[in-house]
């Protein structure tokens, strides 16, 4: 008998139908991954399985069985006996997934206390064992510390240890590795894998198909509250049949996607939106027709919920043939005056920066040439953002210098830098915070245009509309406030603003890391298009090796404030010289090897 059997689960929040007809099964020693973007209903599903959907939710199901118990009939006190004892939940590591005011030991021991699993005197020893089991070194000291004194990886391990304290049969992990650096992420996944091997059932919730691929036995892909495709991991990755799964896989950037578009073709916008019982993906699907919009199909024999499933394998060929391959792209670029000179636009020379005596950037030297994309890779705390701020002239280096267009850039008074600021523009990770909250899109872009001398009025409106068009936004958005835009739209506005002054250099600091994979794909494609059309030089900063492999000509790897390696992308990734680069590559899920 299966441990967990969900059949026809529906969750509504008032009028919002968050989860629709979800069915899944899971057995001991098995790992099922539920994958989807934000709003797909995957987290709501996870919370429903621990009875914590929230007070405003209505939950119905044909069956919701856990180890012979009907979960739909559980009273709240009976639920409490299940939570933490039979089913454990691990959330994403935020600083606050563990109570920041209590010691790690008290947090790990809480299930022991609640379920009376160990008398007070025995708890420290049990906490010690649990932390050791989760791979936390020096457990005694860690138990006495508070969450903020632990690194992200250790915090996540402690969180897992606390979920395991009641020795649950089922562990639900909601984005357990999302905020972690690649190397740490790999370690946490290994820990979860060991758990599964020891017989625990594992339900893994993630937005990232490539991350769960190495761990999951089976995958269920969710979209718009429904499971659209499900099956054994290998088969689903090799032969995805649902257009959404295919788009999702095609959107993952990496070495194999170099020179190719990541986002699929724009769906036909004519035709009405899908009805309430239509396929939720019809809005985005290029193959959608009237039938798709009217009714959602059942899962077919292959586990695909689609009227028009694809039957071929997802070939290594591009989903959409790009107009040019990377090599012809290069040739074309060589023909442009900018690139022909091979002129160096930015020169960073032995730059160091320390905050309160702690070195953040140490002796970094690099250059950015006209028309090229330089990928700057590093994990959190590597100093890459500080370096970007120094390049942008927002921060002064303690020692060393930055030169822009061959002339001094750092160490100048701001009024001397100001006239040349139009040459170098920026796109930040969080576009929302980079917009004045009171302003509309028109004013945000208009402020940048004002600096170029375009007078207020029709000329400026016209140019703003052009810029929005260039980044793929409709003029209808001109009067919207940033809070009324989606994440992808915001980032497009930020790019339009950066382009307004006609810069030669664009500094992008993690521009896609807050976005869903499919939106990330669109933004990366946009950046690539802009680069091709305008000959922009891009300094692209990311923690994500796959993204950098996808679009960088040259790569610089940063670690602990130092540049450990620089080189041409293909060569560097094929033959990494630095030990750290090798570790980083090994930890990256799909992209690197594949």
């Amino acid at each position: 008998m299966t441990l967990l059997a969900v059949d026809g689960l529906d969750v509504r929040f008032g009028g919002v139908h968050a989860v629709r007809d979800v069915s899944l099964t899971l057995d001991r020693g098995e790992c099922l991954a539920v994958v989807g973007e934000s709003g797909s209903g995957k987290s709501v599903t996870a919370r429903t399985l621990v009875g914590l959907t929230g007070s405003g939710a209505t939950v119905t199901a044909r069956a919701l069985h856990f180890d012979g118990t009907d979960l739909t009939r559980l009273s709240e006190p009976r639920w409490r006996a299940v939570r933490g004892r039979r089913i454990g939940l691990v959330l994403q590591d935020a600083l606050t997934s563990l109570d920041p005011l209590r010691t790690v030991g008290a947090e790990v021991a809480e299930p022991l206390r609640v379920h009376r699993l160990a008398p007070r005197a025995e708890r420290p020893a049990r906490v010690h064992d649990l932390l050791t089991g989760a791979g936390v070194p020096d457990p005694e000291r860690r138990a006495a510390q508070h969450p903020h004194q632990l690194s992200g990886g250790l915090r996540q391990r402690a969180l897992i240890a606390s979920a395991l304290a009641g020795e649950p049969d089922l562990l639900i992990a909601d984005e357990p590795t999302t905020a972690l650096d690649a190397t740490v992420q790999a370690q946490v996944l290994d820990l979860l894998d060991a758990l599964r091997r020891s017989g625990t059932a594992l339900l893994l919730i993630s937005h990232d198909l490539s991350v769960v691929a190495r761990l999951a036995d089976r995958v269920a892909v969710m979209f718009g509250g429904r499971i659209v495709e499900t099956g054994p991991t290998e088969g689903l990755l090799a032969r995805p049949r649902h257009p959404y799964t295919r788009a999702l896989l095609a959107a993952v950037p990496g070495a194999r996607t170099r020179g190719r578009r990541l986002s699929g073709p724009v769906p036909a916008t004519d035709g009405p939106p899908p009805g309430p019982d239509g396929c939720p993906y019809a809005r985005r699907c290029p193959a959608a027709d009237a039938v798709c919009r009217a009714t959602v199909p059942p899962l077919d024999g292959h586990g695909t919920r689609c009227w028009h499933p694809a039957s071929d394998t997802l070939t290594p060929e591009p989903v959409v043939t790009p107009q040019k391959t990377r090599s012809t792209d290069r040739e074309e670029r060589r023909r442009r005056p900018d690139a022909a000179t091979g002129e160096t636009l930015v020169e960073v020379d032995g730059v160091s920066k320390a905050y309160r005596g702690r070195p953040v950037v140490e002796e970094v030297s690099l250059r950015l040439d006209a028309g090229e994309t330089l990928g700057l890779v590093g994990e959190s705390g590597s100093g890459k953002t500080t370096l970007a701020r120094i390049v942008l002239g927002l921060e002064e280096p303690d020692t060393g210098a930055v030169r822009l267009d061959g002339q001094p850039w750092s160490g100048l008074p701001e009024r001397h830098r100001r006239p040349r600021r139009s040459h170098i523009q920026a796109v930040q990770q969080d576009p929302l915070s980079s917009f004045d909250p009171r302003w509309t899109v028109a004013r945000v872009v208009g402020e940048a245009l004002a600096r170029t001398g375009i007078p207020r009025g029709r000329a400026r409106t016209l140019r703003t509309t052009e810029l929005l068009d260039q980044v793929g936004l409709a003029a209808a958005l001109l009067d919207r406030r940033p809070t009324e835009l989606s994440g992808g739209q915001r980032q497009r506005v930020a790019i339009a603003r950066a382009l307004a002054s006609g810069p030669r250099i664009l500094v992008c600091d993690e521009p896609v890391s807050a976005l869903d994979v499919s939106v990330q794909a669109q933004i990366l494609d946009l950046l690539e298009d802009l680069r091709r059309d305008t000959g922009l030089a891009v300094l692209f900063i990311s923690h994500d090796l796959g993204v950098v492999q996808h679009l960088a000509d040259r790569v610089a790897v940063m670690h602990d404030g130092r540049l450990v390696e620089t080189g041409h992308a293909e060569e560097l990734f094929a033959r990494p010289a630095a030990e750290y680069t090798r570790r980083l590559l090994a930890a990256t899920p799909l992209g690197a090897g594949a």
Partner: protein
Amino acid sequence: MVRPRAALRLTGRAAPAIAAALLVLIVLAAVAPGLIAGASPLETDPVAALTPPGSAHWFGTDQLGRDLFARVVHGTRPSLLLGLGATALSVAGGAALGLAAALGGRAADQVLMRAADVLLALPPILLALLAVTVLGTGSVNVMIAIAIAFVPGYARIVRAETLVVRRSGYVESAVVLGVPRPVLIVRHVLPNAVGPMLVLATVGFGAALIAASGLSFLGLGPQPPSPEWGAMLSQGRSFLATAWWIGVFPGAAITLTTLTVNAVGRRAQRRFTRRTAA
């Protein structure tokens, strides 16, 4: 227990409308008290002294036979003016000093914030008492005294807000665009730093009204026969045993006004945070 629940839910939904209606009424009483209360607030009638509330005198009469309802309605203007004046002065002063501290460099910041620390170390009422001692009694002096007591608080808020805005992503973006500093301050820093304080000031108005009426309650504000609410309360104290209404109605007017403004202010505050942080 169904009906009280339903009634409460109804008031919950109707609360904004009720608050708005009260606000209109209060403003009307301040602008044209004669429209609401026909009787004179100053005319004495020894025969009718200390009449309890009834059909002739809704709120009763005071020890000199003056109609209390007329006095409470006519007292709206002087009472509101005290609160408004004090709030306007303290907001203006707070904004100026807070901005000066945040944008004027280290030395200015140090001096101003240490001064604010000192003033904040004294209870507002004591500070206001001290100010009235120096300035003398009267409406304008009470306003100034309350403003002195409230300025450090507002200055602190504006300074903190300004520092947040100055480090914000959008100010940084403007720097990257090459927007000159003075333009940047006027365009981004000022509105975003002072805006939240204006919303706070609606709630601050209630506190100012209570404090100002408190000073006149102590006999330091407008002098009799002015129908200011605090002063009326002060007189009512002597008749608590025999004529409770003299002490109850002027205080109720203060409370109702403060309640209305607080309710409206809180709503504005919630909306404001939702708009900027959504």
